């Protein structure tokens, strides 16, 4: 049995510790906000946070999560209040939307580490996440907008 925390809640699962965290989240815990796109850490659709760092859960074995904190898109906020969610809605980023959980989770780590990213910072942080619908220009705009929103909030 592997014990860890998902979005602050303690969970125990009896999956093989070699099972990728993605499938534990989706099929054992029923949390389907985290997506499967490639299974090889090539597309970023499965991005979650492990103790605050962005990881590709499709190649991270369950054993890596033992005792640690996993944050998924479902845990970003309970009410769409995270600046990235607000910015994504304001800019209307998603098309099909399938990759957006991963995009937002990658962007969240970027903004946490770098509250005012440049275009180049965004290129570097976000190029591991593929969007087949081609929402990249809007993702870029929304990250800048979220940075502004977060700054406004902390200035108040």
């Amino acid at each position, binding site marked *: 049995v592997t014990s860890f925390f998902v979005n602050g809640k303690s969970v125990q699962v009896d999956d093989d510790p070699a*099972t990728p965290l993605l499938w534990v989240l989706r099929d054992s815990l029923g949390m389907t906000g985290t*997506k499967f796109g490639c299974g090889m850490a090539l597309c970023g659709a499965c991005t979650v946070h492990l103790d605050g760092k962005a990881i590709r859960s499709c190649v991270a074995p369950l054993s890596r999560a033992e005792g640690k904190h996993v944050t998924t898109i479902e845990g970003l906020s309970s009410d769409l209040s995270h600046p990235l969610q607000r910015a*994504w809605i304001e800019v209307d980023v998603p*098309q099909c939307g399938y990759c957006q959980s991963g995009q937002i989770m990658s962007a969240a780590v970027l903004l946490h580490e770098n509250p005012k990213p440049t275009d180049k910072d965004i290129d570097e942080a976000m190029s591991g996440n593929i969007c*087949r619908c081609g929402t990249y*220009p809007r993702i870029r705009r929304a990250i800048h907008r979220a940075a502004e929103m977060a700054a406004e909030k902390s200035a108040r």
Partner: protein
Amino acid sequence: MSTTLIPPAAKLARREFLKTSAALGGGLCIAAYVPELAAAAAGPADGVFAPNAFVRIAPDDSVTLILNHSEMGQGIYTSLPMLLNEELEAEWSKIKIEAAPVDPAYNHSLFGIQMTGGSTTTPSEWERFRRMGAMARIMLVQAAAQKWSVDPSSCHVEKGAVIHAASGKKATYGSLVNDAAQLKPPQNIPLKDPKQFTLVGKPTRRLDTPSKVNGSAQFGLDVKVPGMLFAVVLRPPVFGAKLTTVDGSEALKIKGVRAVEQIPSGVAVIADKFWAAKQAREKVKANWDEGENASLSTAKMLQDFSKLSATPGTLAKKSGDPASALQSAAKTITAEYDVPYLAHAMMEPLNCVIDFRGDTAEIWTGTQFETIDRAAAAKVLGLSPEKIKLNTTLLGGGFGRRANPDSDWVVEAAHVAKIAKAPVKVVWTREDDLAGGWYRPMWHDRFAAGLDAQGNPVAWTHTIVGQSILTGTAFEQFGVKDGVDSASVEGAADLLYGIPNLQVDLHSPKIGVPVQWWRSVGHSHTGFSVEGFFDEVAHAGGKDPYELRRKLLANQPRMLAVLNLVAEKAGWGKPLPAGRGRGIATHFSFDSYVAQVVEASVEKNGDVRVHRVVCAVDCGRAINPDIVKAQMEGGIIFGLTAALKTEITLDRGRVQQTNFHDYQMLRMFESPAIEVHIVPSEANPTGVGEPGVPPAAPALANAIFAATGKRVRRLPIRPADLVTEGTSKS
């Protein structure tokens, strides 16, 4: 003029289905008016006002719209409600969306089957959805007027309420549902003058965005059914190979594996969880009789296609006397263009859940082809289609792949469901998706043009080589006329440029690789080749490529306006930083006019940088201008990905690409700045999902020529061909 509003496949599908459901032919809108049918279609709960198949209003004022087209990113879960609510005038925030069940009431108003494709959703629903909204509003107003004993014409509606201004009376829609439900639907349903539109034409935020930023959006892969098993399928290494022997004993030893069994498309591995099934599949030992496709090689096809294109094909278009015009021309130029097989590579791999209960079944999948999929599954399961409930989920991208003429992934899942003895979710991996066929065909285009002494083109011949998408399918007899598949020559045979002597002919070799429509279909190759060669013609005649287009589009006012707008916004002719070039391209598809200007440069090692793309579009009335812009942006990225990155190749019959490391997508750091300009129009809306794709690749190729003097005639662009210094990049 092209008739791409109705893609050939759908045209025939329409006829096919009208034959079998003659009562519905031409009466598709009427079907939506029949209350019994509407009730059967979406089963409204008691106390809910259901004036037609598309609208449900509950006593709590909530308005549920039943949408008969699939949301795959193109925004129709917002633009269809906008059309309907333009007339209904419910409170926008109270609108909820539900996917329609399969029912004739929800058939495509042009094609006669329930489907989404061909960039036709908004054009085909432009009138029906407004009428459905107006119908509900008229009945609500009548109900209120009766209650108040006033003339309906003295009432008006506002934000989900009927108001009688003279008396100050007001009733919300929810409070009127019981009374309205007693009324007969109106015979006459007038629509607003577009000048009075308050919603249509306004940038409006998408209704599906909140669910797509908190993980709650339900795609097919997210469906959970109690007791559900998971399956993957081991498919043959070569298209059409037959299984000779299979040994699943090692696979069955993996914990949680329930069954390893042969099905028509391969070997199904069924387990309690996906991960167990996937691991078990790797342990299945299978032998195949690979058959004739084991010798397929795209490298050889490239040569074969070129040779074939030097011989006359089946005539698709002829005007004037191209042969003698070429002969007497002051100057002639020729060129050959190539594009590869391409996979759709939607981010959500194919998947399908089926709960087969013996005498009934339920299906959950993200599909563009509800009627066809349900019928195909019914055949496998031995049920009549009415015994199957098909639930359309959100689609994690479609691009045509989820409108499969054979319903390949649904049929396969039905075979798995027959042996699973429980609800089962069949999941494709990315490797399965890329090797799974149903590609955009590989194409070869051979051109010749004759120029007069002033450098104007007077003759244009174009020979196309590539597999027919429709031939060999049940649709062949309808979609292929006189040996010409119109999907092969669209964008070429309907050339808008005024060139007096024009000829387009076609070779459609039969090859054992399954092919399918892929975002913009035939235009995905003709856009590139025609606009690339046009640029060559302009340069050969000493003309500016923009000015020559202007001249030859003099009789095409809508395209001319788009062209002029894009040139103005892009600053055509203005100086650029050293090393950069501008390329321009236009393309007419799905009844929309699009022009794009790309700014690009090439590094010394041959790497291409796309700096900026400016796009102008005339798609008739833009229902939601922000969605139109988003679709152009996405179409441009899709087109640039095909230009710079992707190709499916085969060697010894095997697909050589396996995942996103060797089937690369454009990524954030390669994504250019994009500006989209919409030509204001009061014409009826036309296609938006696909027309942004075709001009991107040629505009880039033409920009590379402007920057480097090197002509790109083959996609994807190979940096090795563009190296200016040192050794070529591997």
